[in-house]
């Protein structure tokens, strides 16, 4: 298994290990299916790994397609969109750090466009945006990923004070306050697994 695949496997495992927590958060403010979605994303990731060709661009596209097939909920589709958009910008000519930076930037922009959400609206973007900033501020891959993990976690924490406007949680408004956003938590877990 390539290093890339091994890292993805770590992400899949982390998603499974935390599915209970995701379910709890999504139950409180949404419809409680984010634990299931996390499990299905893990399945999609594994199925993408098994089809891996070694070509980063093709593999990211494949991962996105497989995740979208196995996890069709809002979050699953946004997650898959990130891979598909990243696929469009990575290249073998770039350094790993460059690919990570460009890939996550494209993922962030694609997800924001697809979900039509803005920063501060209590979504996964509120964990992804600070992580992206941290990635860009760093000069080597290792430190970039570890500071991104810290930033994503802080971002997820901060969602507890935000009013939801998107997804099913958007319908409950004020009542969500005090609780962290479920999707932002998934992002934090993903970055913690990547480092």
């Amino acid at each position, binding site marked *: 298994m390539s290093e890339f695949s091994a890292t993805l496997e770590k992400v899949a495992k982390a998603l499974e290990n935390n599915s209970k927590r995701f379910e709890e958060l999504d139950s409180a403010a949404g419809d409680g299916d984010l634990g299931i979605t996390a499990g299905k994303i893990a399945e999609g990731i594994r199925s993408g790994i098994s089809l891996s060709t070694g070509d980063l661009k093709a593999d990211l596209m494949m991962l996105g397609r497989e995740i979208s*097939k196995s996890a069709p909920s809002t979050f699953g589709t946004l997650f898959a969109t990130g891979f598909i958009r990243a696929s469009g910008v990575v290249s073998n000519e770039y350094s790993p750090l460059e690919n990570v930076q460009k890939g996550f930037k494209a993922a962030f922009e694609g997800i924001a466009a697809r979900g039509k959400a803005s920063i501060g609206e209590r979504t996964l973007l509120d964990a992804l945006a600070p992580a992206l900033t941290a990635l860009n501020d760093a000069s080597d891959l290792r430190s970039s990923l570890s500071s991104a993990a810290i930033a994503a976690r802080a971002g997820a924490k901060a969602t507890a004070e935000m009013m939801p406007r998107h997804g099913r949680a958007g*319908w409950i408004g004020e009542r969500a306050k005090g609780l962290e956003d479920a999707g932002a938590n998934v992002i934090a877990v993903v970055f913690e697994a990547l480092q």
Partner: protein
Amino acid sequence: MQKILNIPKEFVSEMLEGILQAYPTQLKAVDGDNQALTRADAPIAGKVGITTGGGSGHLPLFLGYVGKGLLDGVAVGDVFQSPTADQMLAVTKQVNSGAGVLYIYGNYGGDVMNFDLAAELAAAEGIRVETILGADDVASAPKGEESRRRGIAGIFFLYKVAGAAAAAGKSLDEVVAITKRAAAQTRTMGVALSPVTLPTVGHPTFEVKAGEMEIGMGIHGEPGIRKAKLETADQITTELISAIKSDLSLKSGDKVCVLMNSLGATPPEELYIMYRQVKKIFSGDGIDVARVYVGEFATSLEMAGASISVIRVDSELLGYINAPAHTPFFTQV
């Protein structure tokens, strides 16, 4: 859970099997995936393809409107869950005859994400896709924020208009234009009287107490705008119609079509009691009801409750609404 079921998680696959066995000459599965269905005769040469999609548990939504004079294909999700982008893409490719494809579906996050992704992938394969969202539920967001509204039973009118226009040979741009006009004139408001139980969950996923009701509750149990003691049919109807009238700025001389929809367990008898009051209010206001549909059009399993949809029509819209249609679930002559 008073349901006639086998294995709960096979609910959707067994239902789809039964549907395909019941209507083998009218429906077909794309590439053996029963969650990607089209008219048996798709693609129709030269015709704009119209597809929809959404979660299961709402029959006749969504697949029930696939057929002559209505839709060409549908992606079917699990109960209350979006189908995948891949399924919508497969349907899109199957119904496209080269004239382009129009997606019409309800405004729910999961569906929007998936079908936008499907449209993006279809475009990459050279298929022109346009999208119109059903967002008719007045209760789900205030005026000025119409784009946040959920889609419920009023989508029937969008299907009907788009389906008839496409059957009449209109181009994709023309079908889009008339359907947008239909969407702008359609409003729905509903009331829930009981919760529903998802087959895989086995107990109600939200609460509506006996003797109470929730005005504006969504068809998946999304919170409404007012919980109250169960009122009379006339009171409820008046509240629903008032909200629609003001949101649509209906006025004397307007012509409308009305759709009285049961959410599942509420029997048609009660819908007619409500319609009596609708007719009374509209007559008093000088609003002409050109056509009325009464029955189950967009349900939520065995949920008790009803919704009223109203579309303001001109002669072109009414012509399309009155056009014949024939699917396994809906026939109009």
